[in-house]
């Protein structure tokens, strides 16, 4: 495992990596813009950037794993490190560490910007704010795991990017098109982005179809199950 981590680390730093910078840039950028406009739920407004940041997190995960299949590099990787789960574990550990760093930075900066820009912003020590901020970081980690899972199953970097971003972005839009409240609630509760992002809400929680922590649980379930399937596929399939 140590050698695998060392190898994956070397791989990571020997090509330009834009993803962590992009995560911070897009997340903080949209959060600050939204904070300038304000809204009903100051905390959620100040963390709106997570909507953009998650795309970069997902793309990074896909690039890290499916990108190797796209270039054929996977062949060299699995020749040097034939224990496939070790490779996956090393990649996952590095990605989650990177996403954690970028997410902490983005969420921290977004919260500080929100506090500076929005009038009735809650105190930094308030429970709902801490839950939303911590939840945002956990949510981004879940998306990273989900991205790895989808990439492991699909292997085509482009198809994997399309699939995971579809999973994240289609649900909230399509809900609006279904004029059936039962369906709308069912979709909202079961999709990773709609359910998971309820963790950012701090007001009028009673009207949410799913509560913040259970909602994040839905996203986490998606992440773990997809990652598990991906790991099984990586082990079973020919490279």
């Amino acid at each position, binding site marked *: 495992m140590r050698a695998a981590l060392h190898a994956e680390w070397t791989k990571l730093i020997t090509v330009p990596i834009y993803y962590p910078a992009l995560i911070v840039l*897009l997340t903080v950028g*949209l959060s600050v*813009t*939204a904070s300038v*406009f*304000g*809204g*009903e*739920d100051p905390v*959620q*407004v100040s963390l*709106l950037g997570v*909507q*953009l940041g998650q*795309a*970069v997190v*997902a*793309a990074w995960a*896909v*690039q890290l794993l*499916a*990108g190797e299949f*796209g*270039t054929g590099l996977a062949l060299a990787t699995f020749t040097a490190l034939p224990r496939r789960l070790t490779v996956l574990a090393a990649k996952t550990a590095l990605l989650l560490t990177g996403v954690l760093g970028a997410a902490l930075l983005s969420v921290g900066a977004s919260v500080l910007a929100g506090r500076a820009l929005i009038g009735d912003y809650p105190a930094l020590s308030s429970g709902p704010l801490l839950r939303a901020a911590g939840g945002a970081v956990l949510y981004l980690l879940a998306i990273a795991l989900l991205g790895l899972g989808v990439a492991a199953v699909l292997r085509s*970097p*482009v*198809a994997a*990017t*399309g699939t995971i*971003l*579809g999973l994240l*972005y*289609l649900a*909230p*839009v*399509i*809900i*609006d*098109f*279904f*004029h*059936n409240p039962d*369906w709308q609630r069912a979709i909202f509760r079961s999709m990773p982005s709609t359910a998971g992002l*309820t963790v950012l*809400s701090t*007001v*009028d929680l009673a*009207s*949410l179809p799913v509560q913040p922590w259970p909602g994040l649980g839905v996203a986490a379930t998606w992440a773990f199950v997809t990652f598990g399937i991906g790991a099984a596929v990586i082990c079973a399939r020919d490279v």
Partner: protein
Amino acid sequence: MTMLRAEWTKLRSATGWLAGLIGAAAVILGLGVLAAFGVTTSCGEQEGADCPHPPTGPSGQAVNDHFSFVHQPLTGDGTITAHVADFTGIITYPPPDHDQIVEGLVPWAKAGLIVKDGTKPGSAYASVLVTGAHGTRMQHNFTEDHSGPAAARWLRLSRSGETIRGYASADAVDWTEIQSVRLPGLPQTVQIGLFVASPSNVTAKAGAHGGSIVQARFTQATAVFDQVSATGSWTYDNVGDEPAMQTDWEQFHQAEGFTTADGRLTVTGTGDIAPAGQEGGPTITFTLAGLIAALLIVIVVAVLFITAEYRRGLIRTTLAAMPHRGRVLTAKAAVIGAAVFVAGLVATAVTLPLAGHVLRARGNFLLPVPTGTLLRIIVGSAVLLALTAVLAYAIGAVLRRGVPAVALAILAVIVPYLLATTSVLPTTAAQWLMRVTPAAAFAVQQALPAYPQVGKPYTPTDGYFPLPPWAGLLVLAAWAAAILAFAVIRTRRADA
């Protein structure tokens, strides 16, 4: 031309891409029909077609037609003149505190003279009126509005055959003709008289969990008319009123109605004479649920169409066969755009009528949409798909790498739409997103026009976009063209 054929052959012969296009068309059809089956209308005890729905105006659109009407028949030509001596009203629980009933008129409260083809809601009419805050107006047949002198309080309406003229005056001496309009098919005998209407006080606020929440509050207006030229006996009708929907105010304080004393006619009314908006019911647009999913597939297909060439080195073969790099890139763009357009057009042309049929067959009401608008949505959605394909392709040609290209295209087209329609962003920010980003092209989906003479918040959440459909498409086209041009310039300079 040969270039186009070569690129088409490439697209056609690679099964993955073709499957993607067919999948995109299938998802539009599938989700559209699914969305149609998902709708069940019910209202209290009743279901489906028995539910009340807005009346239909002379040109086929859904309308609001609720007002207090003091009228008498007019056979043949004639003129009525009146002075609006007083115009007051109440607004229930307005912002900011929503805690009391205040005196006042909403900007589009209406009092004036009207000629109408009977008292049936939705029938043809022409009216000249004073408003709460928009001066005098001449309005007819729900959608048409023309402004007159702001300070005038004297109104005159004259009928001559099918032609109605509206006048306003400040002193009953100098009269300004506001407008002359034709009401085709107006019968010999019409109802003429005084009317008062007061639309709801409406505000939209950002929802705590995204989207916007529209709040409508009951209002009522009272106008005192004197110097009314017409004599004879008056009949009162509360046109379009639903007694079951009466507010406490109407039941216990002041009902709509009409009194007369000393030649002064006092009319109290609520409601509006105006085109109905999205609140009147669903439009056919929502059966385009699959369009977003199709956009995603199209983005993937278009990006693969170019990045696969770079990755496998096929581009060297392509460029060796066709050395004009700029033209090759453009030809490829044209091919992917055209292929997506055709696939999209087939899908939308089948889906909208079919889903509409399913909805109606299951007893649901759909707001009527003119055939021209329907055609525009069908063709425009296909153009939206095609331009998105070209945009994604161009991004792929610039970046030459699939993952960032797909992500960027989705962030450019789909995410702004998502943020504008479902996020916690306020309406102004949402409208800016729908003006400047490639997502502006979603304006082609707008089924109902926004009317300046209706005091309603028209938000992207409710399906109203800040740009007209063609302008929205133009914004997307400009983005696609600019990025494609950048790709062409870069390809000329860089090595393949």
